[in-house]
């Protein structure tokens, strides 16, 4: 092998404290080194030209450059080497600036250290193999999991960008939590007015195929070529025939079904359409409460349905979709308020969650938009809003701030004051978090214009007194204990990962933190990407945020997908692991440790199963190589032999 060594003086940065001539002279003694020189600025144009000429003149097969940190100029030198016809991986860089010349003034020991580093680089280079990146075709379809505002935004942007979109929504209708809201802060514009049109667009776009009331069964494959199995859950109604007229919902005798859309306020029929603007506007039979499915009686809906769409024998159906990228927008759930026994959540009917209150405020809600108490239907004169219920409280395992509660409490209080001008609203808060545009002004308006009493303190206990509730707390600013007789208490429950988020993360092989929020690949620089190539995040599933931020992340994820699909093929990084099938003993340890699920079983002709690394999914961390007992799997460009060569170069 013919190796050329170039010692860079880097002006005086290296030459000052390292005798580059001696290092170059010394390099000639190392095996396979046929050409060694030092140069003023190797990374400059003339420097690279010097390398190119030396490669051609001396028929070099590998190049070692001893200069700055590879983080700086490894790509530069690799391109220079490639221009001269060598494979870009037949190149090693020794860092004799940041690690040698800049950190010590003793010229002599610096020179010895530089010689050693060059020797290590030469020894490693002698074992380098030319590596070539392979091209893998991309299936330009994107899967959006979750039909909330973030998912809708991502799907819309991708679809407008000309991509085929597959949207999977767990509930029967898209719209997510935002569809349940009455108004949105800080502009108090009606939630369904801004969300509705977008939902209709989703249903009308040809290149968006919507699978509502479906869940992800399994995800396999890798970036550009995911194979996703989707379980279309049985709705017992043929959605092609059903027109959403709602006849069945009037006639259905089983009226006691839990109304999930209205958060359990009031009940609904077994066969129901969640709300008028639902997309897709189709009916669904709730198997637990339908009289026919549970006791075999009734079948009234079948008789009444003008479109003959009822199918009692319907089964779950698994369909497969091939996609190239996945946007996860699975949103969140509200904190279970019954954990705070002292607030009586779940025991007293007039202690409700903020989402339930949204349904009360909403015109399509169970009370048609009239603010009444769930217990006796009377209009409340005193309402107390409690903030931070299940947020900023480590004792219940929710130390984080949910970010949106302060704002929506102010909004709910303002709407309440609009509806019932003589109703007193109290807000018990610890701190007000209103960081967005016009956010704090909105809170200021709530306090001054709408006369909402903000009481700084944490409520201790809520207990009933005849038909009203005593809210026992403290006003820390006034330094007095306060007891308010309230007709209605609204708990601003915090946000937490949606139920089933962890299982989905395991299927997608993305990681999540201890609260179930999905882990972005870098909190500041890459918030919508994950460590799994091809899987992107949008909305609250990545962490508590408000609607504007969720929409922004939806567009950001869509942009990332567009970038990925801007090329027809993906170029894979060749520094990935490779399995030597003759040595592999099929113990499966590499598959267990691989954080990216990049290794799968491969069945050979004789039926035996060996490990196989997917080059596009492997990120090159080398965990499998360290774990493999017979060292069958080797991380290319960083194999055991190459590292041992460097170790031996030092240990001699």
């Amino acid at each position, binding site marked *: 092998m013919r190796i050329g060594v170039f010692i860079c003086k880097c002006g005086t940065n290296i030459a000052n404290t390292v005798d580059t001539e001696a290092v170059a002279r010394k390099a000639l003694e190392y095996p396979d080194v046929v050409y060694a020189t030092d140069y003023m600025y190797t990374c400059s144009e003339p420097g690279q030209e010097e390398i190119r000429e030396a490669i051609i003149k001396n028929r070099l097969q590998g190049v070692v450059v001893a200069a700055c940190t590879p983080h700086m100029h490894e790509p530069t030198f690799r391109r220079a080497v490639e221009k001269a016809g060598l494979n870009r991986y037949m190149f090693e860089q020794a860092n004799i600036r940041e690690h040698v010349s800049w950190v010590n003034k003793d010229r002599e020991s610096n020179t010895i250290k530089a010689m050693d580093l060059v020797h290590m680089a030469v020894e490693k280079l002698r074992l380098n193999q030319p590596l070539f990146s392979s091209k893998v075709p991309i299936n330009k379809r994107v899967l959006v999991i979750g039909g909330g505002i973030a998912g809708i935004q991502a799907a819309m942007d991708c679809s407008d960008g000309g991509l085929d979109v597959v949207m999977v929504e767990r509930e029967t209708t898209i719209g997510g939590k935002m569809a349940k809201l009455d108004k949105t802060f800080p502009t108090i514009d009606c939630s369904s007015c801004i969300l509705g049109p977008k939902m209709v667009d989703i249903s009308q776009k040809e290149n968006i195929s919507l699978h509502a009331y479906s869940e992800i069964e399994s995800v396999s494959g890798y970036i550009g070529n995911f194979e996703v199995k989707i379980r279309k859950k049985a709705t017992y109604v043929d959605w092609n025939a059903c027109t959403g007229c709602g006849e069945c919902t009037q006639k259905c005798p089983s009226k006691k079904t839990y109304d999930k859309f209205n958060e359990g306020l009031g009940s609904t029929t077994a066969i129901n359409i969640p709300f008028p603007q639902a997309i897709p506007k189709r009916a669904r039979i709730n198997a637990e409460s339908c009289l026919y499915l549970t006791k075999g009686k009734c079948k009234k809906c079948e008789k009444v349905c003008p479109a003959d769409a009822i199918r009692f024998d319907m089964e779950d159906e698994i369909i497969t979709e091939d996609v190239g990228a996945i946007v996860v927008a699975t949103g969140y759930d509200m904190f279970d308020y019954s954990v705070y026994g002292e607030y009586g959540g779940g025991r007293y009917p007039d202690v409700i969650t903020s989402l339930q209150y949204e349904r009360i405020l909403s015109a399509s809600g169970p009370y048609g938009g009239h603010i009444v108490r769930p217990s006796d239907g009377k209009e409340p004169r005193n309402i107390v809003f409690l903030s931070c219920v299940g947020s900023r409280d480590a004792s219940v395992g929710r130390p984080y701030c949910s970010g949106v509660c302060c704002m929506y409490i102010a909004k709910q209080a303002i709407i309440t004051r609009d509806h019932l001008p003589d109703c007193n609203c109290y807000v018990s808060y610890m701190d007000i978090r209103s960081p967005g545009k016009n956010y704090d002004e909105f809170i200021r308006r709530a306090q001054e214009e709408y006369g909402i009493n903000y009481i700084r303190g944490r409520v201790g206990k809520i207990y009933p007194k005849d038909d009203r509730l005593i809210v026992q707390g403290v006003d820390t600013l006034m330094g007095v204990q306060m007891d308010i007789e309230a007709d209605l208490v609204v708990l601003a429950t915090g946000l937490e990962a949606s139920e089933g988020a962890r299982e989905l993360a395991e299927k997608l092989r993305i990681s999540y933190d*201890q609260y179930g929020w999905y882990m972005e690949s870098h909190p500041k620089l890459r918030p919508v990407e994950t460590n799994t190539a091809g899987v992107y995040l949008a909305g609250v599933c990545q962490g508590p945020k408000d609607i504007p931020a969720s929409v922004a992340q939806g567009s950001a994820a869509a942009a990332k997908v567009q970038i990925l699909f801007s090329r027809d093929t993906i170029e894979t990084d060749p520094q990935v692991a490779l399995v030597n099938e003759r040595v592999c003993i099929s113990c499966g340890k590499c598959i*267990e*440790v691989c954080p990216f699920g990049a290794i799968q079983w491969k069945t050979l002709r004789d039926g035996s199963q060996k490990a196989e690394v997917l080059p596009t999914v492997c990120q090159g961390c080398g965990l499998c190589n360290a774990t493999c007992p017979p060292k069958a799997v080797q991380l290319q460009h960083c194999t055991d032999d190459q590292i041992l060569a460097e170790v031996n170069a030092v240990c001699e």
Partner: protein
Amino acid sequence: MAFIWPAAVPNAGNEIPTMLIKEKMNQILKDMLDYEAGIDAEAKPPLLTFDPGETGI
């Protein structure tokens, strides 16, 4: 030269005490991760998994 066997290691013949190495490994893992091999068929060998919450390492 008769080799005096350290009393600390009861040994029948003249075998090389390789099992001392494995016993030390098991002792360390017992202290470190309170793990014993071959007891629970579902447990994952300690070096093939990780626990983000563990401290002291």
